[in-house]
């Protein structure tokens, strides 16, 4: 009986632990209004763009591949969005141009990976460096959007800010897409077992390409949000690399341990954002935030590896 209960509870151990940790922090530092409604709104607002990028990465990782290119592409796309928006004064034109570029780049990456069987790691790291180079050549300072009508995209509120609503809707849609549709099952099978996918008659290349395209769409949305909210900051994407990966791996340690899942990514990301906000609120120096994020990533992945140590056949380098 006890064993059964434990088995049932086990997938939820990690998220419950994280929530308890946050509550403990709030209880110890009771003078800091960490969990006040206003603060929760701010946490959500500040993590929208990272959350969208992390969701895109989750899709790619579910299909069994990986991606580093977003670290370079993200800041490049924000610059392009800000520049185009300043020239044309039109939100839609800027958004479409950013989306088109992101889709094109991710389509090329996925074509190289699936058709030519290149390593996704090397291809995406090369794309990351190339995007960094282009960004460096054109733009080395912060670009702000001048048109208040476009900036209002991230400030309009209907109870919650509009972009937070968008984030929630996107997450719900993606959750349903992954867990309730044939597409989602096929995608997960492709990532889980290549041979089973072939036996089941699933077009694994097509699945991988569509995962990359969805990630491109989400990255374009993320960069538009970032651009309207804080402006295009030089090389910001590099600093998002760790939170995005940490959210995905932290997410893979809960709900469905060992596998990347949408809800886990969301909870992992909220945890990271809350911790960061907490450290900002008690005026910790910025370097400590970096150290803590690094430790969280290593500990999260280490926990997953440790939990599944019987299954580990060999060292994975």
């Amino acid at each position: 009986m006890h064993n059964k209960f434990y088995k049932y509870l086990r997938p939820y151990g990690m998220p419950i632990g994280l929530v308890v940790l946050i509550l403990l922090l709030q209880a110890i530092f009771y003078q800091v209004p960490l969990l006040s409604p206003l603060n929760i709104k701010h946490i959500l607002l500040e993590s929208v763009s990272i959350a969208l990028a992390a969701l895109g990465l989750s899709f790619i990782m579910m299909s069994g591949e990986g991606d580093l290119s977003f670290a370079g592409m993200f800041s490049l796309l924000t610059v392009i969005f800000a520049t185009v928006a300043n020239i044309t004064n039109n939100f839609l034109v800027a958004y479409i141009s950013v989306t088109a570029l992101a889709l094109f780049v991710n389509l090329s990456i996925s074509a190289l990976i699936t058709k030519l069987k290149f390593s996704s790691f090397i291809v995406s790291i090369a794309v990351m460096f190339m995007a960094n180079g282009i960004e460096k050549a054109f733009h080395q300072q912060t670009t702000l959007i001048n048109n208040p009508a476009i900036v209002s995209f991230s400030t309009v509120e209907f109870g919650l800010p509009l972009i937070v609503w968008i984030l929630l809707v996107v997450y719900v849609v993606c959750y349903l897409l992954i867990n309730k549709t044939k597409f989602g099952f096929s995608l997960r099978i492709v990532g889980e077992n290549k041979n089973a996918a072939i036996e089941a008659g699933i077009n694994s290349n097509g699945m991988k390409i569509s995962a990359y395209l969805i990630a491109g769409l989400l990255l374009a949305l993320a960069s538009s949000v970032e651009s309207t909210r804080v402006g295009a900051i030089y090389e910001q994407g590099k600093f998002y690399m760790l939170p995005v990966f940490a959210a995905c791996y932290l997410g893979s340690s809960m709900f469905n341990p060992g596998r990347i899942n949408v809800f886990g990514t969301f909870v992992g990301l909220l945890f990271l954002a809350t911790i960061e906000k907490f450290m900002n609120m008690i005026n910790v120096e910025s370097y400590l935030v970096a150290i803590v994020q690094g430790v969280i990533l290593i500990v999260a992945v280490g926990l997953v590896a440790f939990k599944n140590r019987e299954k580990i056949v060999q060292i994975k380098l």
Partner: protein
Amino acid sequence: MNNKTGSIIKNLQALIKSPQMRIFLILIVAVFLMFTFLIPDFNYLKIQNLNNILTDSVIPAVFAFGMGIIIAGSGFDLSLGHIASMVALIVAYLMSGGIRLDPVSATLIGLLAAAGVGAVSGLLVSRMGISSFIVTLGMQFLIIGVRQIITKGQSVYISNETFKWLATSAFGVSNLVIILIIISVFCFLLMEKNIFGRKVQFIGSNIEASRFMGIDVKNITMLTFVLGAVLAGFGGVLFAARAGAVQINSVDSKLLDAITIAVFSNVIFGKYQSSGIVLVAILISMIGTGMSMMGIRTEWIDFMKGFILLFSIFLAKFMNQNTSITRISLFNTQKGAESYGHE
């Protein structure tokens, strides 16, 4: 003695006759001719310029040796640039201000710190079984935090003339070039003429088989990370000696050079090869110098390096190379045996 010289000449002949080396030499000659004719007044051919190309290739090559050793064991280290920055900062800091340590012991302490960081990454990778990509990504941010504590964000100037001697030139050739020759001979002996290097390459090609053969996979994997970190740290020291001042993130971007050179050399020669790393470093330095002489802004050279990295995989496909790097897959934390090596 005579026999030994004969065998060295035979080795060299075999090296030049190998098809990879031929393609590579054609590539170098093509790049060389292109820039010779593109740049007016044959400025590219001047001795001064050729000397510059050689000197510029030294620091990236040292980084690439570190990365190359780690890649040979089928790992990856994203934190090499940050480790080098940290070492450069430590060394500069120990020699300046109130401490005024002598250059040798300052360098040794810096390299020891690098070895420590490498050992931690190596331990996490080999004992815990965490993907090396994740460990080193986390390590990057740890180092960003730690070095901020050391320097409080300020750059450190180096006034010690003995230390700067590392980057001066004697007899027309920079001391850096001599250092590169020493390091490449060391890496050649370690990785290609020693049982340790053989074991690393064996682990890189098939980790499971090497465990069944009784190779101490865990410790050797950890040692590659330590070696890579120390070499990168030494690259940071050379950078500090050359630049005369160390900013907090001045060496971070050398990660791009390290990855590009190490991967290019690995895919074109199909395995770890010291001579390959030196030659690729010179090729990339040739391209960089040529582009800047044509008036192209330095930012585009970074783009070019990323492009070369992508191009090198095409080259591997074209040459039918199947090395650990062309099928490296570091994103899976869960899948052991099938994550790489088994198609």
